[in-house]
C-alpha cells in the first residue's frame, strides 16, 4: 500500500511565554501523517501531546508561538498563517478536533441541534434550508436515538457519553480530512468508552478520514492505533506500528510505560513504577530528557541528545541504546512477556 502523506510536520518548535519565562513544550518534532490511518499519540500529562496537535488548527493559547519548523497541509505551511480568516478555512472544515470533556465543550445555553446547525451553516456544507435535515441525519449517524425529537434538547439533558457523541457530530459535520481526538474517552465510563471508540472507527471508515488519537491509556492505544507515537518532554521518542511499539519497543521510556500497566503486573508483587518527575521544560534540556529517570541510562545520555535510530522501515526510536557502540541491554522481562502473551491477563477477560 503506497502511503500518501496528508500532513507533514518538520522540526516543529513551540514556545510558551509564562510571566516573562519561556517554556518549550514542543522541542523539534517531525511527523508524517498518512492518509486514512489512525495514529495514536501517547505520553504522560505535560509531554506536549495536546499542544502539538492544537498547533495544527491554530488553537495554541495566546502566549504560545511557533518558533520554528513547518506544518505542511495541502501544500500550505500552516505555521505561516497570521489571520484568523486563514485558519477558518482549515479549522473545523479540514481538520476538526474532539476534546476531552464533553461537559465543557458544548454551549449549555444552546439547543444541541442549533449548535450543530451553526457549524453547517458557517461552513456552507449544505444550503440553509437543508441544514436541519442534515443535523438530524448527523445525530442519528453518531448513534443518538430519536434524533428528531432530541434536536431541540439542551446539553444538560444528555448523558456524558451522549454529549461526546454530539461533540463528534459537530466535529465531523463538515466531513473533515483529519479528526483529532484529544482524550475523547478519559472522562467517560469504560462501557461508554468502548462505544465511543467504536463510533470513531465507524465514522473513520465511512468518511475515509485520518484520525489522530491522543491518549494516556495504552489500552485505548492498542485498540485504535495503526501507528503509535510515544511522546516525552516535547519530543516523539519512539514511533512505529502498533505491533512494533507494543511487542518490540526500543526506547526505555516505552518500556517503562508498558511495564507500569497493572494488566502486566504480577498479583501481590510490586508494579514497576517510573521514579521521579518529567523534566522542567523551563530549563534547557541537555542530552536525553528521560535520562534522569532512566535506569538504563548511559553516560552519553546526559551529554548529548540522541538522534533517531531506525529499527525497521516504519519504526524508529530516539535512544542511544540503539547506537551500534552501546552496550547490549535487553528490555525488562515484562516486555518479552507481552510479546509472548505470557502475562496473567492473557485470557483477555472472558467473552
Amino acid at each position, binding site marked *: 500500500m503506497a502511503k500518501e502523506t496528508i500532513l507533514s510536520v518538520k522540526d516543529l518548535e513551540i514556545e510558551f511565554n509564562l510571566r516573562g519565562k519561556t517554556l518549550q513544550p514542543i522541542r523539534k518534532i517531525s511527523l508524517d501523517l498518512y492518509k486514512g490511518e489512525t495514529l495514536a499519540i501517547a505520553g*504522560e*500529562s505535560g509531554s506536549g501531546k495536546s499542544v502539538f496537535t492544537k498547533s495544527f488548527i491554530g488553537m495554541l493559547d495566546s502566549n504560545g508561538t511557533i518558533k520554528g519548523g513547518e506544518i505542511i497541509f495541502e501544500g500550505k505551511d500552516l505555521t505561516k498563517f497570521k489571520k484568523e480568516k486563514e485558519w477558518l478555512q482549515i479549522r473545523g472544515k479540514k481538520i476538526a478536533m474532539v476534546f476531552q470533556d464533553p461537559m465543557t465543550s458544548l454551549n449549555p445555553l444552546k439547543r444541541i441541534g442549533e449548535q450543530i446547525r451553526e457549524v453547517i451553516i458557517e461552513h456552507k456544507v449544505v444550503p440553509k434550508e437543508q441544514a436541519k435535515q442534515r443535523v438530524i441525519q448527523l445525530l442519528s449517524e453518531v448513534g443518538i436515538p430519536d434524533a428528531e425529537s432530541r434536536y431541540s434538547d439542551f446539553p444538560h439533558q444528555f448523558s*456524558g457519553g451522549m454529549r461526546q457523541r454530539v461533540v463528534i457530530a459537530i466535529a465531523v459535520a463538515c466531513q473533515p480530512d483529519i479528526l483529532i481526538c484529544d482524550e475523547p474517552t478519559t472522562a467517560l*465510563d*469504560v*462501557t*461508554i*468508552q*468502548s*462505544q465511543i471508540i*467504536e463510533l470513531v472507527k465507524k465514522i473513520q471508515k465511512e468518511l475515509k478520514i485520518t484520525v489522530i488519537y491522543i491518549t*494516556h*491509556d*495504552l*489500552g*485505548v*492505544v*492498542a*485498540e485504535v*492505533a495503526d501507528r503509535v507515537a510515544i511522546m516525552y518532554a516535547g519530543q516523539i521518542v519512539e514511533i512505529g506500528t*502498533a*505491533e512494533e511499539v*507494543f*511487542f518490540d519497543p526500543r526506547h526505555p521510556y516505552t518500556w*517503562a*510505560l*508498558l511495564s*507500569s*500497566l*497493572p*494488566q*502486566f*503486573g504480577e*498479583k*501481590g508483587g*510490586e*508494579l*514497576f*513504577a*517510573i521514579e521521579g*518527575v518529567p523534566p522542567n521544560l523551563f530549563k534547557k534540556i541537555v542530552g536525553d530528557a528521560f535520562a534522569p529517570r532512566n535506569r538504563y541510562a548511559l553516560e552519553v545520555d546526559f551529554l548529548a541528545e540522541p538522534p533517531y535510530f531506525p529499527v525497521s522501515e516504519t519504526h524508529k526510536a530516539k535512544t542511544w541504546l540503539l547506537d551500534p557502540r552501546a552496550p547490549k541491554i535487553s528490555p525488562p522481562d515484562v516486555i518479552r512477556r*507481552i510479546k509472548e*502473551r505470557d502475562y496473567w*491477563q492473557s*485470557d*483477555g*477477560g*472472558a*467473552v
Partner: protein
Amino acid sequence: MSRIEREPILKVEDISVYFKNGKKTVHAVNHVSFDIFKGETFSLVGESGSGKTTIGRAIVRLNQIQTGRIIFQNEVISGKISRTLHSKVVRKVQMIFQDPMASLNERAKVNYIISEGLINSREYKNQQELDDRVHHALLDVGLLPEFASRFPHEFSGGQRQRIGIARALIMKPDFIVADEPISALDVSIRAQVLNLLNKFKRERGLSYLFIAHDLSVVRFISDRIAVIYAGKIVELADAERLFQKPLHPYTKNLLSAAPVPDPRLAKSKVVTIYDPTQHDYSKEKPTFSEIEPGHFVYGNVAELEKYSKEL
C-alpha cells in the same frame, strides 16, 4: 488463608441509601450486603451513578442509610451511635479521595493537612509528637519530611495523592475506603500509588474497600471483587474467579469493555452490550445467591440455573 479462618472487619448488611430530590426518590443503594475480611482488598466496580461511592461514604458515616446496618469490628457503626464510637470510627476508618487536586485544602500547609485528623481528635500529647508523626507519615508515603512546610499547589498530582494517603495513615486506621484513588493520576504515577497501598496492606494488615470503574486495575489490586449495577451488587467473587468465570451479563459487559493493552487482542475484542430489560423479574423475585463457594450472583431461579450450567 482458608475461608473459615478469615474474620470480617466490616460487615455491610442489607443497606440502602435513598436520596430525595423533590418528590422523586432515588434509590442510590438498594439492599446491599457484603463482608470485608481483615487484611483484604475488596473492590466495588461499577459505572458512574451505580452507587459505589455512596456505599463508601455510608461506611465512613458521610451518608445516612435507610435500611440495614454496618458492623465494624463487631460494633454497629451505622445510625445513631455513641460519641465515643463515632470518634473511634472517625479514627479507624479513613478515606482516600479520587481527585488529589480537589481534596486538599489549598490554603493550608502540608503539615496541617496531614495532622488535622490528629488535632481534631486530640490524639497526641505535645507538639513534638505531632511533628514526629507528620514526619513519619511523609516518609512512609515516600515524600521528604521537609515538604511539611509547603503548600499543596507545589506538588504534582502523584505527590498530592500521597499527601492524601499520608493524611489517612497518620490516624493509624484499620480500614481504608479508597474511592478511585488512581483514576485522576497519570499512568506512570498510578503504579506508585498502587504499590504504596499494597505495601501498607502487607506491613500493617490494613483492609481496603477499593472503589473503581476500571477493571484492569482492580484485578491487580483486589482479593475479591463485587460488581455493582444501579445500586445492587449483581456479582461477587474472588478476583481471579470473576475474570475466569463471569456469570452475570453485566459483569460480562464490563469485562468485555475493559481496554486490553495488546494490539492483537484489542483489535479482535468483541464488546457485549448489557440490556437490563433482559431480566424478567415480574413473576419470580431474584435473589443474591452463592452459586459456588465464595461466588455470588444476583438472579431468579431460572437465571441461577442457567449460570450454574456455565460454571
